[in-house]
């Protein structure tokens, strides 16, 4: 048997191109469905675990999927905005505890999540380095953001403008990195967390400038009445919040009208959750309340429907490839007819020749198996990251 394997190995080495092609075909045909299965299982696990741990999401009526993807996975697609009043309404109902979220802005390609401290408690997030958010302008980084941007407590991070050509828009805010979160292996690792009010400052709804009542430059004052001074756009606004200027920061208008992308509602119990959901069922209601698990389940159903189609395509391709491989072997046998005749005349039995050919096939299959195993191991090892890169973010 060893002799047969030795001769087969020599033959395979001599016909490298043919061998590589055959190994690649068999490897890919085996690897593709297994890898797809692995990735889909991982994505299902990731999507569902976060969705299941989030009881209810309140947002504007519209695409429930956009709302859930933005709220749970901080997707770029920003849903229709709601106001802080929506959060207050949940609070006043005493049926659930609301966690407001404003996921609209980015900092160096990472989503900025404006929320309250309750979000950290709800998700069980822990500060690994530095401290928790304390004042306006502070930010806490997800573990992978800190790694990829090489930032640590004490550094700063600037928010990105919403559009590149927004010349007349809001100045970016230089935020102070005060802490880095422990790795959670969820979307939270890829986000920059700020206080909700800091997110509003990034939008320009809150800002800091010198005391307008003491302005001496007349070009900075548009109108002065007995109780109010209207400032012009020339008035310089701070782009960083420091201990010295934090007192100058303020908000205009009614805070309950300030924007949010969603509210996580954590009901007291199942009954409270059901009652709360019932309150958003009327036609006149401009908001919707969804169970993320239902929305993600719907998404997964679609993914699995697509997966069935893919499986069918892969099966057909696999069949065609196997037929092609058989053809390659058959043609190869024809081409090697003279060589086989020579072996036969040298005194080898038919069984020995069959064993030689089987050894070749065996080596090719084993090599494909090894490559396929290695690739599957790699996918399995990095499935977490691959799923985030390919499916979630």
């Amino acid at each position, binding site marked *: 048997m060893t002799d047969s394997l030795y001769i087969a190995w020599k033959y395979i080495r001599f016909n490298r191109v043919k061998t590589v092609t055959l190994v690649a075909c068999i490897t890919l045909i085996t690897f593709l469905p297994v890898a797809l299965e692995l990735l889909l299982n991982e994505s299902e696990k990731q999507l569902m675990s976060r969705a299941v741990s989030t009881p209810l999401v309140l947002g504007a009526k519209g695409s429930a999927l956009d709302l859930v993807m933005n709220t749970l996975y901080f997707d770029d697609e920003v849903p229709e905005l709601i106001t802080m009043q929506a959060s207050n309404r949940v609070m006043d109902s005493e049926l659930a*505890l*609301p*966690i407001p979220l404003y996921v609209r802005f980015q900092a160096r390609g990472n989503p900025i999540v404006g929320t*309250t*401290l*309750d979000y950290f*408690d709800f998700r069980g997030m822990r500060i690994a380095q530095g*401290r*928790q*958010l*304390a*004042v*306006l302008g*502070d930010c806490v980084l997800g573990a992978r953001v800190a790694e990829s941007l090489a930032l640590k407590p004490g550094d700063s991070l600037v928010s990105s403008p919403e559009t590149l050509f927004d010349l007349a828009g809001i100045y970016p805010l230089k935020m102070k990195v005060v802490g880095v979160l422990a790795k959670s292996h969820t979307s939270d690792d890829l986000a920059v967390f700020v*206080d909700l*009010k800091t997110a509003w400052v990034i939008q320009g709804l809150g800002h800091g400038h010198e005391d*307008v*009542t003491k302005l001496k430059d007349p070009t900075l004052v*548009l*109108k002065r009445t007995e*109780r*109010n*001074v*209207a*400032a*012009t*756009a020339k*008035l310089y606004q701070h782009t960083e919040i420091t201990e010295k200027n*934090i*007192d100058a*920061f*303020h*908000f*205009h*208008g*009614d*805070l309950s009208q300030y924007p949010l992308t969603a509210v996580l509602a954590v009901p007291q119990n199942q009954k409270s959750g059901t009652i709360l959901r019932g309150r958003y069922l009327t036609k006149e209601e401009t908001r919707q309340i969804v169970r993320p698990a239902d929305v993600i389940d719907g998404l997964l159903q679609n993914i699995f429907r697509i997966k069935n189609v893919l499986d069918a395509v892969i099966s057909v391709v696999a069949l065609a490839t196997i037929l092609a491989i058989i053809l390659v072997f058959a043609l190869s046998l024809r081409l090697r007819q003279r060589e086989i005749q020579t072996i036969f005349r040298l005194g080898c039995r038919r069984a020995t020749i069959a064993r030689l050919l089987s050894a070749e096939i065996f080596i090719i299959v084993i090599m494909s198996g090894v490559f396929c195993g290695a690739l599957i191991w790699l996918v399995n090892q990095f499935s977490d990251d691959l799923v985030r890169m390919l499916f979630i973010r």
Partner: protein
Amino acid sequence: MQVNWFSLHDNNRRFFFIFCVVVTVAHMVSVSWAGSNSAGKLTVYVVNYPLQYFAERMGGGHVNVVFPAPTDVDPAYWMPDMPTIAAYQQADLILLNGAGYARWVNKATLPRFRMVNTSAGFKDQYIESAEIFTHSHGSEGKHAHEALAFTTWIDFNLAAGQAKAIAEALGRKRPELKDTFQKNYQKLEQDLLKLDRNLKTLISKDPSRPLVVSHPVYDYFARRYGLNIKSLHWEPDQIPTNEQMMELNRILKEHPAKWMIWEGKPMKETVERLLSIGVNSLVFNPCGNTPDQGDFLSVMRQNVENLKLAFKKD
């Protein structure tokens, strides 16, 4: 005496074993009971002294109320440092006054679930202060909302409302002590409403009597008890300038007040300057920060006594 285990009789040995088990279990129970009791004490952080007083009166030994502002600052304009904000974040309950009081709250990150706006129940009764200057941006810009009067607790009826909100918040945190908090609230409410009645009786003698106040912090007080006041911007520890005296004289022409109400004891020179134009001084301390002597109730009782001077028959 040394106990020799092997020399004990079987019955004695059994008794000794049971005794040891009972003592160990009793010790463990007492330790865990003591542990749960100390863990059960609520840590409550507040933003001003009246809230501290209310929470302590109602919470008694079940709460540990902390008001970390230094005694020499006005808590309404105080900004806590990072360790203090971190301590607020760790509290079981954070009691806010509302009505824009303690502006730092809007600049700090605090756990919303643990924050209680004690004046939320009477939001519709907030007063927009006519004395505070606002600003806007551009011709259509919204005003910065900093113009609410916030000394709500010197309307003792509103103070009782704030106390009620605290009792309810404590009850939500410790449902098993809800009745205790309610009983304590009722006692506090009686005290506050007694002050309310006393003030009403006193002021009803002559509600139209003109008064001036040194600072615009008496809006709720004036509204509740129907006082006829005009506000200035004077500090008790500063002698009024000539411009300020001229402003007062202008006011006195249309509003002939004989008494000025101060937040704190004014300087002797100020009192004399005011006396020279026929204006007496009295102190009605809003007690936003911890008083040097006494407590909230005793300070307020003294305030009522002080105010009696202004309503004496001429």
